[in-house]
Every structure is written in structure tokens, then in C-alpha cells.
């Protein structure tokens, strides 16, 4: 009797532990965000967004870093989207079961586990130096594109896998070629899922600082990039730079810039989650 009561108490005790554990991370995150909000929100203004960097905290803004992030985001999308989706299609629809597809699969899952800073070393040596792109937006974007390629490929494969075979059969039976079937049936039916994966991958890219620091993105650039070959900074690097300064004014700036970065990241995640739920609803075969 006593033993049973004890076990039940332990059981209830763990229930409480479980609930606390589940929320502790989120609660801490909320506390952090509240702290950042209190510190940074008063600093946010239109002027803060459109001002150039400066040595005086009160005058400094995020314009160049923000534009750098936008450039990087666009170029990274242009590079990674077609390649990632194509590779996903190849693996799911064309690759025969065998050594080659095993190799590709193992390779992709290994790449997904390579630390982002290592991609930075690759970008520094190959794109910045060997290909002579320098520390340009383009070199940085190619680096980030390679970094998020595994995420896009996996998302593409999962979405394509969810398209029922019967749709393909019907298309083939009407005389469609393989590519016609993929292009006209499989891709439209899986596009929601692919897009979700791509947006999630890009939201990761927006927040990455380490690989771009290694490629040579600068902490201070006087102008926003005008071409893919220009020098650049990005929001996370600007934040990193401000955090490392001793003056309190820069810490405030960092908090304000973090609010902007978080809005961008959470907005992208939100869009992705929304797309996923809408897509799941629509496609109930």
C-alpha cells in the first residue's frame, strides 16, 4: 500500500517536472525577449532603419546591414532554390535504387551536419580566393546557398513523396512523358511543401553570421551594396559588432537590431507554418 502510494507520488512528481521542462525553454526565451524589447524598442525608429553606420551610437543605423541582408537573401534564393529543388526531384523521381543514390543520400545527410562555419572556410578559399569573387555579396550568397541546400533537398523530397502514385500513373497513362508528369502534376501538387521548406531554409540563412564572417563580410561598410560583387555587411554581423563594443549605446543598438532580425525570422517561420497547414488541408487525396 505504502509502496503504491509512493509510486503514484513519484508519477505525479514527474508529471510536474515534465510540464515545467516543456515550458522552461519557452519561458526563458520570453524573458530574454522581454528584456531585449525593453532595452531596444525605444531605439527603433524610421531613422534607425535608414541611417548609415556610425561611430556615435545615437547616430548609427542599420541601413547598410539591412540592405546587405536583403541582397544576400535574394541571391541565396536565386542560387539555392533551383538547384535544391532539382536535386530533390532527381533523387525522388529519377535516381535508381543503388550505389549512386545511396552515396548521394548519405552525403546530403552528412552535409546537413557540417557546422556552418566550415562552409565559411569553403567559401573563403574557393569563392572568395580561387574564383576571385573577393568578399562580395555573391561569394557570401553562394556559401549560404550551399549551406541550406540539404534542407531544401530534404523538404523537396518529402513533399514529392507525399504525391500519390495514382496521379503519376494517370498522367503516364495519358501519354505524358516523365518530365511532363513531374512538371505538370507532381510539382504543382507538392509546391506548397517545397515552398515551406525553402522559406524555413532561408529564415535560417538570414540569421547566419559565422560563415559570412569567415568569407569576409565586413562589420562596417559605408554604403549598401549596388552589385553582387560589392562588399557587404548583414544584420547579424552588425549586431555582433555592436555587442562587442564597450559603450552602452551600442548594446541598445544591438537590442534594437535584434528586434528587427527577430521580426524577420519569426515572420518567415510564421509564413512557412501557415503555408504548411494550408497545403496539408488542401491536399487530402
Amino acid at each position, binding site marked *: 500500500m505504502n509502496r503504491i502510494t509512493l509510486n503514484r507520488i513519484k508519477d505525479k512528481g514527474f508529471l510536474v517536472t515534465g510540464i515545467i521542462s516543456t515550458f522552461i525553454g519557452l519561458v526563458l526565451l520570453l524573458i530574454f525577449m522581454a528584456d531585449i524589447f525593453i532595452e531596444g524598442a525605444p531605439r527603433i525608429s524610421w531613422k534607425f532603419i535608414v541611417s548609415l553606420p556610425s561611430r556615435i551610437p545615437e547616430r548609427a543605423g542599420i541601413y547598410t546591414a539591412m540592405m546587405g541582408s536583403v541582397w544576400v537573401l535574394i541571391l541565396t534564393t536565386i542560387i539555392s532554390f533551383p538547384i535544391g529543388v532539382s536535386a530533390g526531384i532527381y533523387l525522388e523521381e529519377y535516381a535508381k535504387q543503388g550505389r549512386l543514390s545511396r552515396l548521394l543520400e548519405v552525403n546530403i545527410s552528412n552535409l546537413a551536419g557540417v557546422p556552418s562555419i566550415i562552409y565559411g572556410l569553403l567559401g573563403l578559399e574557393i569563392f572568395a580566393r580561387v574564383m576571385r569573387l573577393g568578399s562580395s555579396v555573391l561569394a557570401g550568397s553562394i556559401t549560404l546557398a550551399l549551406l541550406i541546400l540539404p534542407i531544401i533537398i530534404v523538404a523537396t523530397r518529402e513533399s514529392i513523396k507525399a504525391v500519390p502514385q495514382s*496521379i503519376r500513373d494517370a498522367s503516364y497513362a*495519358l501519354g505524358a512523358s516523365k518530365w511532363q508528369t513531374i512538371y505538370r502534376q507532381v510539382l504543382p501538387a507538392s509546391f506548397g511543401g517545397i515552398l515551406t521548406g525553402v522559406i524555413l531554409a532561408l529564415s535560417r540563412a538570414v540569421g547566419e553570421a559565422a560563415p559570412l564572417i569567415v568569407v569576409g563580410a565586413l562589420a562596417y561598410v559605408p554604403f549598401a551594396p549596388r552589385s553582387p560583387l560589392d562588399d557587404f555587411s548583414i544584420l547579424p554581423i552588425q549586431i555582433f559588432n555592436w555587442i562587442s563594443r564597450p559603450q552602452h549605446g551600442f548594446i541598445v543598438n544591438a537590442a534594437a537590431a535584434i528586434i528587427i532580425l527577430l521580426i524577420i525570422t519569426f515572420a518567415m517561420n510564421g509564413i512557412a507554418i501557415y503555408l504548411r497547414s494550408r497545403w496539408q488541408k488542401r491536399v487530402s487525396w
Partner: protein
Amino acid sequence: MFTEAEIMDLIMTKDSKTEHLVNDIIDKPVEEHKITTKNVNVFYGDFKALKNISMKIRPFSVTALIGPSGCGKSTYLRVFNRMNDYINGFRLEGKVVIDGVNIYKDKIILEKLRKEVGMVFQKPNPFPKSIFDNVAYGLQIQGMKDKHFINERVETSLKKVVLWDEVKDDLKKNALALSGGQQQRLCIARTLAVEPNIILMDEPTSALDPISTGKIEELIFELKNEYTILIVTHNMQQAGRVSDRTAFFYLGELIEEGLTKNIFLNPKEERTENYITGRFG
């Protein structure tokens, strides 16, 4: 891509149809067969799914393929439009001749073959697109751009399957919103729109209610005038109602083939009789 002339050629030819205007040819011997299979063996890896099948199929007839589950009916049906090609480990021996062409040997273009040999599947499988786009799909992938022509073909196809009146005001509606029976008729219309000579149907009514089933059976009866039809069915009554000839498969073998009424009334083989009278299956 095809040239314009090739496309018109593809869409317009009805050669074998105009040559034989015979309708009830079932009892008369016919020299020219639409489809001939000779000593066909099919393997899935090491497993032999079809064993030495030889059979001849006449034009403008309905042939029912019956037999217990897993005996190879679907496999046999999919031999004719080479849909088995996508299965890993699939291998075929023997000859499959359609309109004088060995479809596994001679240089054939799969896409053209499937334009000639349409297929309707067991479960209705409309594309997640509008009704119109479903029917127009076959023409579009052939590169047909003439809107007027496509509209007309969509309309005649939907009329043939007696769906036109039900959907004509709603052609933009998503096909997945139709009922199961309507979806299956749409799938048939989609097949007809490409103007095949042969239609393969793999248990086309097994997922449908009796009323929809009745409609589709009537339809098959109508279509016989223009097409050569092979239908797999589990339903003996259905085979009796719609088919001219019946082939009984068992464990990958073709046990018996003949006029439907002969197969049902006095089968030569005991296994056929047992199956038809419901002793196994």
C-alpha cells in the same frame, strides 16, 4: 516536341476504327486481331507473375479479365500500355503485338503508345486541378494549343461519359470536389479525350456505389462501338453484363478464354467453374 502536322496526325487518326465497322463480330472468326500476345512471361524480380500467356483480342470488343486476387490480371492489363515498366525488377518475355507492332521490341515511343492505349484505374484518380484541365491534360501535353479545338474535345468527351450536363456550368471547379462516381466518369472522359483505340480498365467500379457502377457499365457498352476494351473485374455479374469474351486467370496462368456466355454456362476447365460458382476467390 512534335510538329503541328504530327500532332494533328496523332489526334485525328482513327484508321483501324473506320476500317472495321462491324459491330457484333463476336461469333464470327476474325482474321485481323487488334492485340495479340504470344508466350508472355512477366517477372517481378525472381517472382513469375504471368506464365506463358497467349491470347488474341478482337477490335471493338469488350474482354473481361477475371480471377482471384493476385493472379496477375492487373499485371497483364498493364502490359499493354507498358505501365509495368516503372516497377523495379519488372521483366517481360514473349511478344505483345498491337496493330502489328511489337510494343516491347520495335522502336516505339512510349508516349505515343499510351496515346493509343488509354487506361482507367481502380480508384478514381483525377488530378488536383479543375474538371476542364483534367480532360484537356492529354491534349495539352501533346502540345495542342488550339483553344477552340480543346474546348470542343473536352465537351464531346464529357458528353460521351454523360457527365457534361452535370458539370458544364462548373468546369473550373476542382475535380476532387466531385463524387466518386463522377470522378471515375471524369477519368474515363480524360482518357477518351486523347482518342485512344484501346481502353484498359482495372476494376473501374470497385470503389463505386451500385448506381454509379450501373452508369459506368452502360457507358462501357456504348464505348464498345468505337473502342477495344479490356476490363478487369471481380464482379461476375459485371463481366456477364458488359463483356463479349472472358478470360479466366489463376496464379499467373491463363486458364481459359472464350465467349463470355460459354465461360459462364459451360466452362471447359474445372477451376473456371469453381471460381465462377464462387467456390473460391
